[in-house]
């Protein structure tokens, strides 16, 4: 988002980017060409022009908000998945410590809890690998 709007703001015509697309991207004042004070606190959030501070940010199309998808179904799924893997690891550690101290957990229960934790962790690693592969595949695409 940043590079495209910055290029349009400085007046260079980027191929494929039509100023007529959506709202017009404002030109940056030439006096400030080359300096783009990017407020990192706002970098990940909605990019709105901050006119009160006297510093002009590259402004965005209001429709392209770039908010964090807080109630996105997929990120929720991933979160739940990681929580469950974590709980299995915790259960395994708990079983081993109870075996060593108290003994209301038998040996095979502790071993099986550890194996379950191991398999679920491997599953998480495989999911991560697949996601990375997909991401790299997309990044390899020619624009």
């Amino acid at each position, binding site marked *: 988002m940043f590079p495209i709007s910055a290029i349009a703001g400085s007046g260079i015509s980027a191929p494929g980017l039509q100023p007529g697309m959506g709202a017009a991207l404002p030109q940056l004042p030439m006096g400030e060409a080359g300096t783009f004070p990017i407020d990192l606190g706002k970098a990940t959030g909605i990019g709105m022009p901050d006119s009160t501070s006297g510093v002009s940010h590259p402004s965005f199309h209001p429709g392209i908000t770039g908010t964090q998808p807080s109630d996105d179904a997929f990120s929720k799924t991933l979160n739940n998945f990681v929580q469950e893997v974590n709980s299995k690891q915790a259960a395994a550690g708990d079983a081993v410590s109870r075996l060593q101290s108290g003994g209301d957990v038998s040996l095979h229960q502790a071993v099986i809890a550890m194996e*379950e934790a191991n398999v679920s962790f491997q599953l998480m690693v495989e999911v991560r690998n697949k996601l990375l592969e997909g991401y790299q595949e997309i990044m390899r695409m020619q624009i």
Partner: protein
Amino acid sequence: MIDLIPGISSTTTALSAERTRLDVIGENIANANVTRGEDGKPYQRKTVVFETALQQAVNGGPSMTSLQGIKIEKDQRPFPKIHKPGDPDADANGDVSMPNVNIHEEMADLIAATRAFEANLAVARNAKTLAMQTLAIGKR
């Protein structure tokens, strides 16, 4: 996310059950000559009774019969009597009541319980190998 390793929940309960059986057999053999236990009577042999219950189908899989209860009950067979007149536990006729533990029976039960335990261990080991191999499908 329930069990990633297939069938591990029923295997775990079976291992617990066989372990209880082994514990009980060990106790029986250890107390095979105890003529005066608690309440003054000879040691009474214990047996293990397994109860199964039908579990509802989980996640669309088949409904499993799995172990629900492990009960330890006392063997009600009569105590054998041995004639030992000088023994402190002898009764008026000089007979001593021995525990109703038959060592040969216990040894046979021990072998059966050991094999059952090992069989369940083999199931658990194989199931884990299958799970890891399934995960390796996606690996390059």
